[in-house]
């Protein structure tokens, strides 16, 4: 939708980094606020190094200034990471806002006539008329009419969708464009509450609230900051006792090095980027909490049709009965499906074609196509010579044959049963009053689903398939797809009951749905992904809406939720592990005069005390921008068991976090020495 990191976004983020320096904003992030206060104090100490007493050399101001500048940069880097994460959302929000402005609506007056009003004047319950070419002014429910709608403004999907009164496809979204016909829409939201408004708020991050987990982490970080504040504050009197004196700028440098600035600076960027990943995935999450909850899901409830299977049954076998051969059966079957545009019908023609039976439509242009109806439960062709060819449900065909005086072949029942037992749907084929055989229609599991479910199992997530099929069919599909459990002949209440049962055991449940009768279950589930094509009720009940209406995306949402937590955990661990090296840099430097023997702790052999302190501080600052890409992209998530993932991440971010700064600080020290600035 929007380019990842345009120049414009970067420029604005740079500006925002400075705007965010406002202490009233900074105080919300205690870790970085401490750094900002440190920068302010060292600025004062640059002007007057003796501000808090003590005797200093003539160049102390230069050191204080260096510390001040690095601290300021540290804060700015943190602000920049947040701003850049927000930037993408802001750009997106702007383009959405453009869709919204200047919208007009034809509102129906009580007397039945229409008046032209701005869209912002529309209230819940108003009825508006939308004609082809107009933009739908507000979210609503189609009261009458049917038409095709271009939803690309919201979903980015250019293929138009059909919206019409009644049923599950009656909801329309403000900002989308009606391409054909005319609709009468009842407005369902007040201004400011529409889907578009919510989406703008969301992508802008305006409505972003800290998630429970982020809150817990913030508490831990604030606690660590407080501990280090005590450690550093008490260090001065202790040093004083051993006749050492530590200048304030050095103390501040040590404090800033120790407090978890890396994660403190990147924490909100990680959260925003996580939400942004969800949005780029074309899913609107109503809260960050929902995304986080997705990472914790224990049970995934998926509808069979459209989610696990491709939604259409396809012909996979021809099973002739009586004395008929497969070829005869195929000829009749193809004839019955020749003008049948349903996927089932087409699959019959295709399968027969593969087996060498082809027929041209042109030869039968004078025959009449009989479409499937719920009454007859069969479809077919009336040939010009009066012969009727039909295919349909086996019992319907049986009745049809008996009525016409035909007889039922003895092996029909056996073959039908076998297909049903294997989870397929049998379609009987008849020509005149003679049954030729049965077409084996099979539910096709979407390619790759088996692997996905295996991944989910590794992540510890149980999958449950819901289907209206009989238990036999359901079991077969469940086995083929590799789901852990299934509910056959499921009614909406069954889904609800399953969710409640799982939740009673303390599990978190995710499901997707689109129909109005899914709404209660969507609301009950911890993660409810509603399809954008679904009803307003479903979209309101769920805590996420998938604009592409692809229920399998639940699986990706789970991964994004996990990735969000992992990124936070990894950078926190890295941040804390970094402290070890910083101690080895700063402590010997601090006590160089009072306790010279502590120089054995200077295992990095840093050039001078000041250079050691500045190197640690510079490392502390530049690690933030270096990690921005990781914060934005998220730590790579692979579905492996919890323990092996822990080992992997501890190795990378824990042990790596201990080693990297030793190397980094040493390199910076060498650079400082080379620049001749190690002795300021």
């Amino acid at each position, binding site marked *: 939708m929007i380019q990842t990191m345009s120049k414009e976004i970067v420029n604005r983020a740079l500006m925002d980094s400075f705007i965010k320096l406002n202490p009233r904003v900074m105080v919300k992030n205690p870790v970085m606020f401490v750094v900002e206060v440190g920068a302010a104090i060292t600025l004062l100490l640059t002007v007057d190094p003796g501000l808090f007493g003590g005797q200093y050399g003539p160049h102390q101001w230069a050191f204080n200034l260096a510390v001040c500048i690095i601290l300021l940069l540290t804060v700015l880097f943190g602000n920049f990471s947040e701003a850049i994460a927000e930037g993408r959302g802001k750009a997106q929000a702007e383009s959405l806002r453009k869709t919204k402005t200047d919208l007009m609506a034809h509102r129906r007056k009580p007397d039945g006539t229409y008046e032209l009003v701005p869209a912002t004047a529309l209230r819940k319950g108003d009825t508006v008329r939308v004609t082809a070419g107009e933009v739908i002014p507000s979210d609503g429910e189609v009261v009458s009419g049917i038409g095709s709608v271009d939803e690309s403004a919201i979903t980015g999907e250019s293929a138009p969708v059909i919206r019409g009164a009644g049923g599950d496809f009656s909801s329309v979204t403000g900002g989308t464009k009606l391409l054909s016909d005319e609709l009468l829409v009842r407005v369902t939201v007040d201004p400011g509450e529409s889907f578009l408004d919510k989406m703008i708020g969301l992508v802008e991050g305006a409505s972003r609230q800290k998630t429970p987990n982020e809150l817990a982490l913030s*508490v831990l970080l604030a606690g660590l900051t407080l501990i280090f504040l*005590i*450690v550093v504050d*008490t*260090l001065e009197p202790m040093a004083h006792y051993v006749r050492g004196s530590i200048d304030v700028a050095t103390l501040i440098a040590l404090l800033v090095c120790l407090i978890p600035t890396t994660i403190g600076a990147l924490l909100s960027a990680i959260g925003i980027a996580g939400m942004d990943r969800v949005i780029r995935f074309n899913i609107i999450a109503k809260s960050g909490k929902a995304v986080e909850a997705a990472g*914790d899901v224990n049970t995934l409830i998926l509808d069979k049709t459209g989610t696990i299977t491709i939604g259409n049954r396809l012909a996979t076998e021809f099973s002739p009965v009586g004395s008929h051969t497969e070829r005869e059966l195929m000829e009749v079957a193809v004839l019955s499906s020749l003008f049948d545009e349903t996927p089932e019908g087409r699959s019959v023609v295709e399968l027969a074609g593969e087996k060498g039976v082809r027929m041209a439509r042109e030869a039968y242009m004078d025959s009449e196509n009989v479409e499937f109806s719920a009454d007859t439960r069969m479809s077919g062709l009336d040939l010009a010579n009066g012969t009727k060819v039909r295919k349909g449900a086996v019992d319907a065909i049986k009745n049809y044959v008996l009525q016409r005086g035909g007889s039922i072949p003895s092996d029909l029942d056996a073959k039908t049963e076998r297909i049903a037992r294997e989870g397929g749907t049998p379609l009987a084929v008849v020509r005149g009053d003679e049954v030729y055989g049965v077409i084996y229609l099979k539910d096709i599991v979407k390619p790759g689903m088996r692997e996905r479910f295996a991944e989910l199992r590794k992540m510890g997530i149980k999958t449950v398939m819901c289907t209206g099929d009989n238990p036999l069919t359901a079991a077969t599909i469940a086995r083929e797809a590799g789901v852990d459990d299934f509910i056959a002949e499921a009614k909406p209440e069954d889904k609800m009951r399953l969710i409640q049962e799982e939740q009673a055991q303390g599990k978190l449940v995710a499901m997707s749905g689109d129909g109005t009768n899914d709404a209660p279950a969507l609301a009950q589930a911890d993660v409810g992904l509603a399809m954008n094509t679904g009803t307003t009720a479903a979209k309101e009940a769920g805590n996420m809406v998938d604009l592409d209406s692809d229920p399998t995306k639940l699986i990706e949402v789970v991964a994004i939720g*996990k990735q969000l937590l992992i990124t936070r*955990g990894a950078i926190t661990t890295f941040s804390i592990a970094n402290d070890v090296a910083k101690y080895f840099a700063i*402590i010997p430097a601090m*006590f160089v005069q009072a306790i010279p023997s502590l120089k054995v702790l200077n295992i990095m052999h840093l050039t001078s005390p000041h250079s050691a302190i500045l190197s640690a501080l510079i490392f502390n600052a530049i690690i933030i921008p270096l990690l921005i890409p990781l914060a934005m992209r998220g730590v790579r998530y692979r579905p492996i068991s919890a323990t092996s993932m822990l080992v992997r991440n501890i190795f990378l971010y824990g042990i790596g976090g201990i080693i990297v700064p030793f190397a980094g600080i040493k390199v910076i020290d060498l650079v400082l020495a080379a620049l001749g600035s190690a002795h300021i």
Partner: protein
Amino acid sequence: MTFEGIMQILSVIAIIFAIGIPLGGYMYRVYTGRRSWLEPVFVPTERFFYRLVGVNPAAQMDWRAYLKPILLVSFVVMMFAYAMWRLMGHLPLNPDGNKSMPPELAFNTAASFITTTNWQNYGGETGMTYLGQLAAIVVQFVAPALGMVAAVAFLRGLANDRSSNVGNFWVDFIKTFTRILIPICLVSAIVLVGLGVPDTFLGAAKVHTLQGAVQTISRGPVAAQVPIMQLGNNGGGWFNANLSHPLADPTALTDVIELVLMGVGPTAFLVMFGHFIRSRKWTAIFYVFIGGMLVAGTMVIYASESAGNPILHHVLGVTGPNMEGKEVRFGIPLSSLFVAVTAGTDTGAVNAMHDSLTPLGGLVPMANMMLMVVLGGEGVGLLSIIMFLIITVFLSGLMVGRTPEIFGKKIESREIKLAVLAMLSSPVTLLIPTAIAVMTKTGVSSMENPGLHGFSEVLYAFTSMTFNNGSAFGGLGGNTPFFNLVGGVVMLLGRYISMIAMLAIAGSLAMKPRIPVSAGTLKTDTFTFGWIWVAVVVIVGALTFFPALAIGPIAEQIQMVSGHLSQ
């Protein structure tokens, strides 16, 4: 270091951990209300006490209701002890004519005993009467029992599924005496008497020495006091010299018994925890890691003390191990082990003078206290272990992409808030008073050693008080109004802040549903997790205390090795 010495250390540690297994199982049965073959003795006794206190043993309490009597009993018993020690000079059982304590000292001692610290700013022989010592023994029974039941309440909360009930304080409290502390102490006291520890109400003995001089040898009901001082991780001894005194710890055998008494409570709690969460594997893993930390620390002390002091070697030509402040009847290995165990279990009893340890040898007990989890005190040690478990689970839970959970209970911001509060309390009560002491005249004037070692003494003192240990670097003169008052407050905060925070966590965990284990659940009973837990403990401890340790024992050690005399 000798092979024999190493084997001595390892075998005593093995005994401590081995006895913990049946004892922990027994304690689990006690606290979950199972019957024992001594039921006919226990039940009527307990019923008598229930009636005495006027409680319904069937009543259930949530964490707040459970906490209230803990605080109430603490307060009442502390006041009782304070009053006794203020007045004991005028009360009976004072054959040696000792005086009552002045107010600050009585406050410090009362705070010290109720927190199981047993920091003693007095010498037992002259600073206490027999009645005063008996009052101390009473507190030595009550104080650890309070810590034990707090841990039991926590374990119940952890095992709950959406129920606020964490048990009945009075039932747990009384059973702790009748079924655990009193029987073990009774048996141990008899054994110690048999091995030569006195137990008498006769005053000090006057003995004519071979040279014809008259020597006064203090004594008293020592054998009655030693078991609870060890088992309850109290550490406050009858004699000023504590367990290095030959009448409190006459032989190597009594020393081993006293070592074991000190260690079995905490190991039993690890075992009991495993029973509560139905994971013996958890106990096994933590046995390995905590035992490993204990062994590692002990070996560092042993190596450092065996190596002796190179300066003495160069300047005075004295070679061999550092025997200053150690008893020859125990030798270097048992003394090293005692130092590590008394510090790790927050007991504070000593069989050697810690002030005389080499700097590195003195660093280990400080580290064992600061890390809080090298066994820790009975009950409260387990709470510290769990506190770090919560922090570790939180960090590693994030790293596997799930809201962290501990034994099926989600760790959310309330738990983290409380765990951070518990974690925060020690730097506050340790570092701030240390800083105040070294920057004020009144603090500095108590130091008998100048320079870095003087600093180490103060650091050790507040470490000992914060973690309710009670051992000391004896060079510090602690009986001043400053150390008495500040120390008393430090000890109280050190014990109760974390105890209250942990009970509050228990309360909030108790109400949470138990999440069933799945492949995505982070297992806490694996070696991998054990390693990470140790790393978190060590890194948090090191980051908090490294600067202070660097000025004290680390700098001292570097100076000693490089042959410099302290400034």
